[in-house]
């Protein structure tokens, strides 16, 4: 069963904030979704390879060749703030994750 703690954890990962009323609404919907997905556990899947993709395609590859990148004005066009050709964001502390 989903708890308010789970909802808060998922909200944090998505960088979203909710009111208590919204959180309780999510508890209800998450539980409904999970119990629906639970149905799949009734199937006997012994010896069946997990599906990763539903289209029967593999090895869609491109050759290692260059094409034009976007002009910088286009790259930066939607940036709320920029400085010297770089995206400007609020200060982030510490190193990147990976």
């Amino acid at each position, binding site marked *: 069963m989903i708890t308010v703690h789970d909802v808060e954890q998922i909200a944090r*990962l998505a960088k979203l904030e909710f009111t208590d009323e919204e959180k309780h609404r999510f508890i209800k919907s998450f539980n409904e979704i999970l119990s629906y997905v639970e149905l799949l556990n009734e199937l006997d899947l012994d010896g069946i390879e997990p599906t990763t993709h539903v289209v029967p395609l*593999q090895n869609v590859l491109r050759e290692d060749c260059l*094409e034009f990148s976007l002009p910088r004005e286009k*790259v930066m066009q939607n940036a709320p703030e920029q400085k010297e*050709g770089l995206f400007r964001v*609020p200060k982030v*502390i*510490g190193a990147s994750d*990976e």
Partner: protein
Amino acid sequence: MPYEPVIGLEVHIQLSTVSKIFCSCSTRFGAAPNTQVCPVCAGLPGVLPVLNRKVVEFAVRLGLATQCHINRKAVFARKNYFYPDLPKGYQISQFDLPFCQDGKIDIEVEGKVKAIRINRIHAEEDAGKSMHAETYVAAGETLVDLNRCGVPLLEVVSEPDIFSPQEAHAYLSCFRRLVRYLEICDGNMEEGSLRCDANISLRPVGTTALGVKTEIKNMNSFSHVEKALAYEISRQAELLERGERIVQETRLWNDGRGITESMRAKEFSHDYRYFPEPDLVPVEIDSQWIDRTRAEMPELPAAKRQRFIGDYSLSTADAEVLTEDRRLAEYFEAVVRESGDARTAATWVLGELLRALNERKHTIEQLRATPAHLAALLKLVAAGGINRAIARETFAIMLESGQMPDEIIRERGWSQINDSQVLEKAVDAVIAECPDETAAFRNGKEKVFGFLMGQVMRRTRGQANPQQLEQLLRQKLDDGNKRY
């Protein structure tokens, strides 16, 4: 209580492709910010990433070189997290079906060979670059360059088989030599094309259970890795001695202060919520593809070193230096093929050639003197056309001009003087000019002989055949003795 460290390394290498992993933007380092970006690597909606074939080939190459199992089916996965240098909000990586698994790299420490097991090799895209050091940017802001987004990486995860900073160093240098031989990465740690994170824990000597580990990041050179690990070992040992517990966390190496610093543990654990990347179909690597790659593999460093010792009767130390760099090894072998003299070729490559490369900070590809140049020079020396001193000068000119040695010698009139009449004249002149020294030698002062040799060499501008000259000079001086 004595503790032993248990270390596992995670190495990221930037692959030497010309284009990015999922789009055709350039991977070139050092371009103006945000000029190598397209809708795919900027993470705009509605775009479709397409995998670069070279990335698969490079992964298989490295997998074969580390004796990994190559998965017949590999799948990309989304690793979800928010960070300003990751415009999509997820990184395309691999999770449960990476390209390669279960391999090993043999390292050598103090003459002993030890296998470090490889857990997995997976491909992923690099993130952009964030700049937040106060020296570059104003307080309260971070600036982001997306050029690096989508540059192909392979992440190579070792098992915790490394038990000292020295072993970590040996593993890294072995690994770097390997990726350079395979020509899949330039291995430059300072520029970030090879990055290393370490997991490290301590346990009482004689026990097998693993202790609580910390992850060390921000080590930008081989010496950082050794220093950071040594520091972390003593830090953890002190805590354990005091009966305190190790906190599982990420720590950053601060090279200026010579310590690792806590990155401030996040208040909740990471949850990347991996799932199969729907925009990229699976990669199936059949045995033909693997066989083809295997056939194209270069000879690997360890095998080459053994062969050099056997084929060319080189010492282990010489063979090691010659095989450190694949291009240097190939240069040496080309000189041997053309000159037919491995010993002399080794002496010249290890001596004059390496010295010249170090002095000029050149790579071997930048040299204007090809193996054919050096081989021709060695042949001239062997045939008595020039002496060693002149050969060294000729070599220096050859490096600059790219001229063949015989041409250099002809232009400068440097051919060795083997004509005994010419040599005799020079010897006579020196004896006449230096009566004091000549007399001293004849009175048994053998040391003066070198001075007299030098005088004759000067008269012949260094071109005298040294063996012939020595014989002649001795003979003349002795004749004089008899006469008195």
